[in-house]
């Protein structure tokens, strides 16, 4: 259960000043966000929620797509971070940026813990440990009702204005703007991160852990660190979700959430950050669209679509898109 996605082009010579790549990504995300803002001014709540979940999918891509650790317990990190933010907010830390920090720290810590547990193993045992870990956290969240509100959810907290200026409004403009900026920044950083020596090494570990050991890499500690980074990213998502919604429920730590994130990742294409973003956005928009036009046959339609995707874009939509683009370019050149 390793070796997912191809990274053929990763080593191709890049133009000098390759930093531009990240800057471009930042600009593109922001631009896309602004377009979303202008075209769907009344759907900002949906777009905001999509962004929060996108962080979860990104974090999953880091451990699964890049480091080859298959997990169905990633939502535990997301959810715990969200609970941490909710509790911090109730305790009086209401500044959204500070809360984001709380989420990142909580996420990173949870990431390290799950890394210690999960990345010790490989293949099926690993998957099982991740499931068990997620279920344990979910069971605890249900039990520790004084911190989580149990099945009623943790509610009743309200973050203050972003930077003291932008109040959270009913149209969700502030939520959206705040989330979008955070996404653009984090994505740019991550794009850089996965090209770094550390990121490359993780991909090496994914391919063959023993080989990595044989060039002197201490595999286990690295996976834990990778998990920490991934946890921080999931923590951003959890924090945004808590800040924007004002309620944290058991759903955010649930198995369903983990599984859905995995589906989104695979739909987009694991092993590419942009694939994760793609998958998250497309899947949720599609799900929302089907859910609102035909809620009664939601499952049939979504199920059918997933099957079609595996038939026609087996490596995920991003790869399909990328190779279609490549073909298109080629055909133009040859003309």
């Amino acid at each position, binding site marked *: 259960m390793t070796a997912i996605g191809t990274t053929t082009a990763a080593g191709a010579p890049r133009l000098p000043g390759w930093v531009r790549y990240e800057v471009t990504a930042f600009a593109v995300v922001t631009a896309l966000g602004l377009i979303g803002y202008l075209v769907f001014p009344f759907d900002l*709540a949906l777009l905001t929620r999509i962004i929060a979940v996108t962080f979860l999918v990104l974090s999953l891509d880091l451990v699964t797509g890049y480091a080859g650790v298959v997990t169905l317990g990633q939502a535990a990190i997301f959810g715990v971070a969200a609970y941490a933010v909710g509790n911090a907010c109730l305790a009086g830390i209401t500044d959204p940026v500070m809360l984001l920090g709380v989420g990142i720290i909580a996420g990173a810590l949870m990431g390290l813990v799950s890394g210690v547990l999960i990345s010790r193993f490989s293949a099926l045992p690993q998957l099982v440990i991740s499931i068990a870990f997620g279920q344990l956290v979910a069971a605890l969240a*249900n039990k520790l009702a004084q911190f989580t509100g*149990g099945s009623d*959810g943790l509610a009743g907290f309200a973050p203050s204005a972003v930077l003291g200026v932008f109040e959270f409004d009913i149209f969700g403009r502030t939520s959206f703007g705040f989330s979008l900026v955070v996404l653009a920044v984090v994505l740019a950083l991550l794009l850089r991160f996965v090209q770094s020596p550390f990121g490359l090494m993780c991909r090496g570990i994914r391919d063959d852990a023993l080989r990595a050991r044989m060039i002197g890499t201490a595999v286990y500690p690295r996976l834990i660190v990778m998990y920490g980074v991934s946890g921080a990213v999931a923590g951003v998502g959890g924090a945004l979700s808590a800040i924007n919604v004002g309620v944290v429920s*058991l*759903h955010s730590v649930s198995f369903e959430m983990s599984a859905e994130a995995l589906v989104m990742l695979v739909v987009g294409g694991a092993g590419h950050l942009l694939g994760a973003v793609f998958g998250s956005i497309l899947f949720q928009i599609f799900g929302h669209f089907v*859910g609102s036009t035909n809620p*009664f046959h939601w*499952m049939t339609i979504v199920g059918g679509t997933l099957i079609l995707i595996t038939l026609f874009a087996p490596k995920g939509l991003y790869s399909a898109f990328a190779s279609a683009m490549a073909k298109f370019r080629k055909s133009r050149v040859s003309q």
Partner: protein
Amino acid sequence: KVGVIGPMSGPYALFGQNFKWGIDAWVAENGDTVGDHKVEFIFRDEESPDPAKSKALAQELIVKDRVQYLAGTYFTPNAMAAAPLLAQGKVPLVVMNAATSSIVEKSPYIVRTSFTMWQNTVPAAKVAKDMGSDKVAIAVSDYGPGHDARDAFKATFEEMGGEVVEEVNMPLSTTDFGPIMQRIKDSGADTIFTFLPSGPPTLAFVKAYIDNGLKADGIKLLSTGDVVTEPDLPAIGEAGLGILSTYHYAVSHDSPENAAFLEAMKTVGAKPGEVTMTAVAAYDGARLIYEMIEATDGKQDPDTAIEAVKGMSWASPRGPVSIDPQTRHIKQNVYLREVAKEGDTFINKETQTFEAQPDWGLAE
């Protein structure tokens, strides 16, 4: 325009479906206009307890579809998530299921036409006492409503001098109840009080109760109506005969209003075997919304709207009900029912009535 949020897909889709049937039944009887205002219901899918998603839905309904009323919400956290939006959006919310007592406290613009666990459970404890039970084992699902049921039963029963000899909180995912039955048996209880959310496990629970010989030993089973919802009865079958439950509605309720309601349900396509109390809550919810529209003459004025329904009382398919002006929660009769067979169909036969029960959870 009214936005309805309910579980249209997923394991709870039956109840979302019932929301729709209930509302459709009301519209079928009363037309889709109030004065010269046309009423339009828009349905959105909440699927599972996911407040982030529900909040987005509520927000979308308010800002994009510009609804004047929100209704529905099956799950408590989802209702909680929508609450802060109501004041900002000037939109009242008619809760048609979510049963945690505190929901109505989250916003002055919330009214509830369903029930709360406390409301249904307190009478159950009284029933137990009346039946002569001394030692009760409580087995509830380990989540909010389960805890409410447990606390309500225990408080009431102990106050009346009964003894609770065993409390079991069962994980929601439990399907194998053998060991739990064994534990109850070992506790020496003479009666079991249970609450599980309606669904496949309820069936397994009842089966385990019978198959492990508890029924044969004369241990009584008492529950809230969720364990024996009408759609589940055929699956439980003969074995379920005689199970007692307390609830605010039985499909077999004998009244002209109920007969008319069931008739209307049929005309909108509801299958007789699949009607649940959520349809009634939705039906009554629609009545409130019509009332509110009339009171405000179609304008967006939540204060007037809510004022208009406070204290309102009417004859619902479940019996006489009223909206408590203080809590904005529905006051209603709670019935003791027994599973019985009438012809080929299994029903919950009402055998005793507890009149005009408030939400005991808020009354505490």
